[in-house]
């Protein structure tokens, strides 16, 4: 088992002539909860999609658990996309059946238990659910897998503050302890307490990667305050997309 879970060197992804990520070098270990933080258009979703194999890098290398992205890494990764990709006539239990067929590490009873604790009726159809409830169903799907790497793209963006706490609590109490959770968000204040490390992306480059406690110790302020400071100084940058 390789030491680092995610390793990338010189990772670059360009859409046409526009670079969404340019020359990203990053290593992320196991058993960590990592925040992928940056303003809109900084490359968060692009990075996550590269890890999932939904996008191919333009240049550079990317490995998960010492292997290049492919079927082997996909079986290790549980991915929560930033938007829903299921048909709305489906019921939560239909999704659970689907995931049980697709993923060997999917724990069906855990998914049902999570639905119960999240207050979701598993027999309901997606189209009858509120936005927050849909997010909860997707979270149950993703967290019920015993994955090595959980990629959560904006898991708390569309829900109210009480539901956010609930979702974060669910993530904290359900992730596989040997696994790493990568959470992309710009709602830093809400998730700061649950993070081990923060990665700041700015215009497609990593500008900071450190533990949350080190940042607080070195800067004397919260990660949220530091983020606001860094990204306030240059309001025209990083928002090109």
């Amino acid at each position, binding site marked *: 088992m390789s030491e680092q879970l995610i390793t990338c060197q010189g990772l670059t992804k360009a859409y046409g002539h526009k670079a969404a990520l340019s020359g990203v070098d990053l290593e992320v270990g196991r058993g*960590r909860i990592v925040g992928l933080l940056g303003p809109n258009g900084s490359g968060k979703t692009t990075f996550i999609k590269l890890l999932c194999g939904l996008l191919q890098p333009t240049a550079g290398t990317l490995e998960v658990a010492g292997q290049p992205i492919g079927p082997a890494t996909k079986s290790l990764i549980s991915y929560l996309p930033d938007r829903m990709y299921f048909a709305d006539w489906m019921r939560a239990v239909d999704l659970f059946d689907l995931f049980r067929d697709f993923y060997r590490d999917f724990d069906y009873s855990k998914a049902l238990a999570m639905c119960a604790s999240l207050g979701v009726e598993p027999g309901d159809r997606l189209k009858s659910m509120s936005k927050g409830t849909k997010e909860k169903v997707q979270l149950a799907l993703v967290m019920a897998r015993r994955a090595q790497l959980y990629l959560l793209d904006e898991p708390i963006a569309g829900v109210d503050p009480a539901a956010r706490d609930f979702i974060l*609590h669910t993530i*904290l*109490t359900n992730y596989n302890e040997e696994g790493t959770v990568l959470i992309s968000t710009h709602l830093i204040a809400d998730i700061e307490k*649950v993070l081990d490390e923060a990665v700041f992306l700015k215009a497609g480059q990593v500008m900071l990667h450190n533990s*949350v*406690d080190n940042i607080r110790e070195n800067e004397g*302020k919260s990660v949220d*305050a530091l983020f606001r400071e860094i990204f306030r100084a240059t309001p025209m940058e990083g928002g090109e997309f």
Partner: protein
Amino acid sequence: MDWKLSDDRPIWLQLSQQLARRIVTGIYPPGSRLPSVRELAAAAGVNPNTMQRALAQLEQDGLAKADRTAGRLVTQDTTILEAVRTAEAQIVINQYFDAMAELGYSQQEAALLLREELK
């Protein structure tokens, strides 16, 4: 007793101070078993690794020790408990003097006012 986390200091440090406070106030009595890292982390809404670090600090300070089987036990050493309690009291006293200084009272005046209060 709720967990209160402020923005300006490392989270693990605040957690270990609040755990120490819970021990000296008897919420976790001497010799008792502390809740597991996972339980404590979930209750405080923090990362388990952060809570782990806070608990490691408690061990280093002698307030808790790892049990042979599993988990951690609160120390029964009254000297250590008393020392930590005194240190906590000192912090509260300093906070009082700081707040009084902001209002323009010298330490002597502040102490005098406190004595009046007791009469």
